């Protein structure tokens, strides 16, 4: 069984926990001010006003004049995310993190030890609540696809179990857009054929879908039948470590994009260091508003997990990716940063001149502080250079 765990309004909840005076108020993380920047995350109170992530701060403060704006404190979220993972780790090493606040757990091997998947998920949820004072929504299902839908089904504070034999009944009434890979475009096309729910989709033959949607048709067909064979890939097994962010609203402000990239880079680098991994290849993924996706990679001579080294490559790759977008003014929907090409040993030869050793020390110190105290705001200044 697979458990999908998704923290509720993660950044905002962590901030609420750190600032108890904010509880009950509409809170967003982002900024830098009421008039500039975008919302990186909103708590449920703010969402009542219609405030969502990636919304320009201007608009958000207009919708909700009482809005409490806090700066993004990524290192804090990274350190809390680590604590969450430590809790996951008590039950299984098979953890596939999707981002700081979301992960798949394959507990098939842990059931003998800890009882059913449901029992494990319940314990994790309780431990996160008791130890970290945060709320996670859990979805428990035979595969990743259904588990992910399940965790979102009853959010916030959700807990949904979908057993093998209940899977089809669970999926059938859902709108087609809940299927991975069905975006706005495909949804519209399907609706035009009169297909709105997963049940409608299931009533079509695979041939019919392939004829109209090509390879994707087969994919949609299988998911609609609750068939998803993808395994949970833990970091230990992973051939790459990456993080990506899909914006609810497209972003064209380059400075904001760069800031998001910087945060993604820090996440990836911190995870590499946590796993004692070093990679040679850095990849940047940019998906534009029209869904064209550009993936650019570059390989270093020596593998690294230094934030600074990865960041330099990420920046140049991003610039190249944006330059290849014909419109000149990129409207971006998704950003991703990944590092692959791991070498398996952790040997590191110090360097006399490169800033390398200094950066390692810096990374080490920052990681340690963030791990130990969580609250300290050790992170880079806005990485726009």
């Amino acid at each position: 069984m697979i458990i999908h765990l998704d923290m509720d309004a993660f950044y905002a909840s962590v901030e609420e926990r750190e600032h108890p005076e904010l509880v009950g108020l509409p809170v967003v993380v982002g900024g830098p001010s009421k008039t500039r920047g975008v919302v990186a995350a909103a708590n449920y109170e703010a969402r009542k006003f219609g405030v969502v992530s990636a919304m320009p701060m201007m608009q958000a403060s207009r919708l909700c004049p009482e809005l409490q704006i806090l700066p993004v404190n990524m290192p804090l979220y990274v350190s809390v995310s680590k604590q969450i993972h430590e809790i996951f780790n008590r039950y299984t090493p098979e953890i596939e993190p999707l981002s700081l606040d979301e992960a798949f757990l394959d507990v098939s091997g842990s059931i003998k030890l800890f009882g059913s998947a449901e029992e494990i998920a319940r314990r994790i949820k309780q431990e996160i609540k008791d130890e970290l004072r945060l709320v996670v929504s859990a979805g428990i299902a035979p595969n990743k696809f259904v588990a992910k839908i399940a965790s979102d089904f009853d959010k916030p504070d959700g807990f949904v179990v979908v057993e093998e034999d209940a899977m089809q009944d669970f999926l059938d009434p859902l709108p087609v857009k809940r299927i991975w890979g069905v975006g706005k475009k495909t949804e519209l096309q399907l609706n035009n054929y009169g297909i709105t729910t997963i049940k409608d989709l299931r009533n079509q033959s695979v041939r019919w879908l392939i004829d109209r949607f090509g390879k994707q048709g087969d994919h949609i067909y299988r998911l609609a039948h609750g068939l998803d064979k993808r395994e949970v890939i833990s970091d230990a097994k992973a051939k790459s470590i990456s993080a990506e962010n899909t914006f609810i609203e497209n972003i064209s402000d380059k400075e904001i994009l760069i800031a998001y990239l910087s945060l993604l880079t820090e996440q990836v680098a911190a995870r590499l260091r946590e796993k004692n991994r070093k990679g040679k290849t850095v990849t940047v993924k940019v998906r534009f508003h029209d869904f064209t996706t550009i993936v650019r990679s570059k390989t270093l001579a020596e593998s690294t997990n230094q934030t600074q080294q990865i960041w330099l490559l990420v920046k140049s790759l991003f610039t190249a990716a944006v330059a290849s977008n014909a419109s000149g003014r990129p409207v971006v929907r998704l950003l991703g940063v990944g590092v692959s090409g791991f070498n398996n040993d952790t040997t590191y030869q110090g360097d006399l001149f490169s800033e390398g050793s200094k950066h390692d020390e810096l990374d080490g110190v920052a990681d340690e502080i963030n791990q130990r105290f969580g609250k300290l705001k050790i992170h880079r200044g806005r990485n726009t250079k």
Partner: protein
Amino acid sequence: MKISISRDAILTPLQMANNVIERRQTLPILSNVLMSVKDNTLSLTGTDLEVEIINHCAIENNEDGETTLPARKLLDICKALPEGSNIEILIDQERAVLKSGRSRFTLSTLSATEFPSIDALISPFEFNVPQKTFKKLIDQTQFCMAQQDVRYYLNGLMLELSNNQMIAVATDGHRLAFCQAEIDLNPGETRQVIVPRKAVNEISRLLEESDESVKVSLSENHIRISFSEVIFTSKLIDGKFPDYQQVIPQKCDNEVKSSRDNLYQSFHRTSVLSNEKYRGMRLQLSENQLQATVHNPEQDEAEEVIEVNYSGDEFEIGFNVAYLLDALSAIKSEEVVMQLTDSNHSCLLFGTDDVNSKYVVMPMRL
């Protein structure tokens, strides 16, 4: 044009020209050796456009002129001829005929006017240095030069000239070698040049362990070293060498003193089992004892306990054992000093009899 020379006299100059000439050439003329005869002197020139070597040898019974011949073939022919034999080369249009005893070879030539030569150096700074001093400076340091590093300025040897002092520094970024010597010199201001790796290797081969001096000329872009019969010229690397002084540790709290031989032998033995790629060796320091351990992916293990003179902190540090062995081989003193700070900082090595040569090695995290 006609050349008459003994096989043995032409062999060494030809060998030197071939050392400079690159095996694979895009320009055919660059695989040839320039041979010119004037005033009873035969000059042989080999070049790769970066480095040029000219050899002069006296000959008799000749006819002035110049041409170029395939260098490798000419060398191989001369090598294969019996010792002590005489060679006669006759140039006729585009053919060269080489005769020796009852052997006869016809070689194609290329026009000497096509041959690229490095021009005279413009307003060079010149000084003389005893060969053995220059040789020592190079030999004590050159093994630390980088190879094909993207930091192109590390792919060579830095020579620094200041009043009465010549310093050589080489580094690949992981370790550094420093050697200084007093020589009679007055450059006014301090001068720094970076001599490319290939040139350094050639210069080191040309220099002899003698008190005789060579003339060194430095221009903006070139270094030229003039021996009595050989003129060696190389382009310089145009770049800024890193501030070496900053990375030579000044003050170290933990000092190991040991017999150089003991240390070398022990490290050498453990190195047999080191990881071929990373060559990591772990050193544990404690009171008058140094323990060296090495592991490899095959789970083999080597351990050496070395008696040393040490009263500093107890700690552990990792190194690329090859770097330490290189430094220890370069150090000639019987007793060697290793100065350390902690497991994250570089180590300074030098021999107690020769503080003019110093080695810095960065540790390795294992």
